[in-house]
C-alpha cells in the first residue's frame, strides 16, 4: 500500500519543512556578503526566520559564543509577549528590524534581521541554552524567531525575497565571482 511506496522512496521523502513550508531567501542582508537569511513560510502564513545554510556563522566550523536578543538598551526580544488568538501585544517588526546578535568564539558578531514585516510571536529561547542547535539544525530546531505577517500582506511580504530557485542562481554567481579556496 502507501507505506510500501514510502519505504522505497525514503531517501527522497519530503521533510516537514518540505511538506508544509515555502523557503524564501534574503541574500547578503544589508549588503554584508553571504549573510543570507532563510524565511520558512507555512501555508497558514506563519513565518519562521532561520539562517540560510550559506550564512557565515554556519561556515568553517565556527562556534557560537553568545546569542543576544537584547537588540538595544530599551528593547529585548525576550520581553515579547502575545496574548489571545489575535496575538495582541507582540512587537511589530519591519524588514530590517534586528532580532538578535550572535557572537562567535572568533569575536565576529552578526545581526540577524526579521526580513519580513509582521508581528513577532516568539523567539527561540532554546538556542540560548544550547547554541549548538543553531549550527546543527539551522532550519528546524535552531530557528531564530516566529513572525505572523498581516493577513493582507501574506503575499506581498515575500515580494522582496528570493525564491529557492533565484537564491540558487545568486549562489552560483557567487561561486563564479569568488571561487572557494580549495
Amino acid at each position: 500500500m502507501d507505506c510500501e511506496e514510502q519505504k522505497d522512496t525514503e531517501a527522497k521523502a519530503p521533510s516537514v519543512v518540505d511538506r508544509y513550508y515555502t523557503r524564501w531567501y534574503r541574500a547578503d542582508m544589508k549588503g554584508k556578503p553571504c549573510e543570507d537569511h532563510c524565511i520558512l513560510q507555512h501555508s497558514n502564513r506563519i513565518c519562521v526566520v532561520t539562517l540560510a545554510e550559506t550564512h557565515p556563522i554556519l561556515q568553517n566550523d565556527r562556534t557560537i559564543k553568545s546569542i543576544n536578543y537584547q537588540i538595544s538598551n530599551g528593547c529585548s526580544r525576550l520581553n515579547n509577549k502575545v496574548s489571545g488568538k489575535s496575538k495582541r501585544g507582540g512587537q511589530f517588526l519591519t524588514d530590517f528590524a534586528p532580532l538578535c546578535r550572535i557572537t562567535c568564539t572568533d569575536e565576529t558578531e552578526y545581526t540577524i534581521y526579521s526580513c519580513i514585516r509582521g508581528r513577532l510571536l516568539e523567539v527561540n529561547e532554546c538556542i540560548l541554552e544550547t547554541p549548538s542547535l543553531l549550527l546543527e539544525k539551522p532550519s528546524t530546531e535552531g530557528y531564530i524567531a516566529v513572525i505572523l505577517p498581516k493577513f493582507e500582506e501574506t503575499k506581498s511580504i515575500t515580494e522582496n525575497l528570493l525564491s529557492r530557485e533565484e537564491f540558487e542562481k545568486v549562489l552560483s554567481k557567487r561561486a563564479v565571482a569568488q571561487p572557494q579556496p580549495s
Partner: protein
Amino acid sequence: MLPLKEKDKPIVQKLLAAGCCARCVLRFCCVSVHAAYRQPPQVRLHYSPGFKLGASGENNKSHDAAGSDAHEEPPSKRAKLEPGASGDMSGEDAAAVAGQRDEELRVCVVCVGVLQELCDATQASKVCVRVCSQMCWGLFSAVDELTCPFWILQHSCWLHVKKELREKSAKLDKDDVVQVKEAFKWVMQGLVAKELGGSTLCSQSKFEVGVEFSHPETDADCHFLASTCPDCFKPTKNKQSVFTRMAVVKALEKIPEDRHSPCPPRRPSSSCVPLDVQCLHASVFVAGRYNKFCRSLPQTPWLIDGERRMESSVEELIAAPVLSSFRAAGFNFSSSGREDVDVRTLGNGRPFAMELLNPHRSSFSTAQMKQLQETINKSSDKIRVRDLQIVSREAMSRMKEGEEEKTKSYTALVWTLKPIRRDDISFIDDIQDLTLDQKTPLRVLHRRALAVRHRVIHSMSARFLDSHHFYLSLKTQAGTYIKEFVHGDFGRTKPNMCELLKTDTDILELDVESVDVDWPPSIPE
C-alpha cells in the same frame, strides 16, 4: 362562563362607540376565558345573565335566549341560528339588528380585522393547507406575528378607556389587556385543530405556525412616532426597519398621553391583508459516530480564500441523506474533536451530532433511523456511520463535556533518519504517563493563542516494520498533538520522538483508533 359583568358596562359602551369589535371589547375588559373568544363575532356580547348589549344598547329576547343556549355549542352551529332568529323579529327589531350588522361588518379600530373575518374558518383552512403541505405530523402550537401599528392602535384605545378600566378594578393595568395575538391564537387554535382532525394543539409544542398581517393604511402611524420621539428610532445595521416592536413600545411609553393622537383610533376603511403563513419546527438533533477511511477528505468543507479545496467532506457526506430524510432547511455539525484531512478515523469512530434546522419531518422509528444510516453508508465508501439516533438538545452537551479529560488512541507510521533495529525501539513500550510540554503547533498558531500546554501520553507501544519505519500506538489525553510529538515541531514540543530516539523522526501516516467518549449510546447492530 359569563365573562362580562354589569360593572363592565361603561367600558363596553365606550369601546363599542369607538368602533371596537366584540373580541376587542373582551380583550379590553381583560377577559381571559378562551371559549368567549371562540364565539363567532356575529354573536353579540353577553355581560350579565339574560342581558345582552348591542351597539345600540338594545335588548332582544329571542337573540338572548339563543345566545345563552348556544354558548357552549360549536361556532358553526351557532352562526346558523342567527338568520332564523332575525326572521321572527318585528320590523323595528330587525332594523336595529340590521344596524348592528352594519356595525359588525365595519372594520374594528383596534385589531383592524384580525379578530374579525381574518380569524374565521376560511383563514384557518389557509393555515391548515400550509401546515399539511409542509409537515408530516401534527402536534403544534400557533403564534401570530403582528406588525407595529397594532401597538399604536392598542395604546390609543387603552388611553381611551383607561379611566373606566381603572374604575372597574384599580389593579388592572395595560398589561392585563389581552393581546391581539393571544385572542387570535385562542380563536384559531380551535378552528385549526378541528380542520386538521387528529392534531393536538398545545402551548409548548415544538412546531409553530406564524400568521403575518399587514395594514398599509396604518403603517404611516409609525412615522408620527418617529417625528415625536426620534431618539427611539435610531437605525442599526442589522435591522430592516427602525420600527421594531421594542422601539415602538418604548416610544409609546415616552410620549405624553395628551399628545397621543388620534384617541380613540380612527375608523379604518379596510381590513388587514393576511400575508404569509409560516411554519417553523424547533431543531431536531441527530447523533452518531463516524469512521473516515480516506486520507484526502476534510471533516468540514475546506475553503482557502473562498476557494474550495478537496471535493467533499465528512460533514457533507453525512448531512445530505439526513437533510433529505428530515426535510430540514439546514444543519449545524459538531463533533468530539476533529481529525486532519490526511488522518483516518477507525475503530468505533468519532462521536458527532447535528442540529437540523426547521425539519419538516421529526419522528423516526428505530428501524427508520437504521435505514437512514444504511443510506448514508451506501452513499460513500469514504465514511461509515454507526449509532445514528435522535437525541435531545441537552444530551448534545454530553459530547463537549469533559473534552479535556477523555482519552484517544492513535496509530502512527514513524520514519527514522538513522536505521533502527527491533530492540532500539522496545523501550518505548515501557513509557507510562509521559507529560509533554507542547507549544501551540506552528500549524495552528495562526488561529489559536500561543501557549504551552501540558498533555499526557498515558502509554505507547512500538511495532517494528523495517530499518527506517515502525508503527507507534499511543493512548493520550485529548488535545495532544500527535504529529508534533513525532516530528518535534522545530523543538517546540518537548519531549518528542526525535529526542527519545536520538535521531530525526517524521510521521508519515496517522490513524485515530478510538475516541473514548461514551456518548451517544451504542445501538446494537
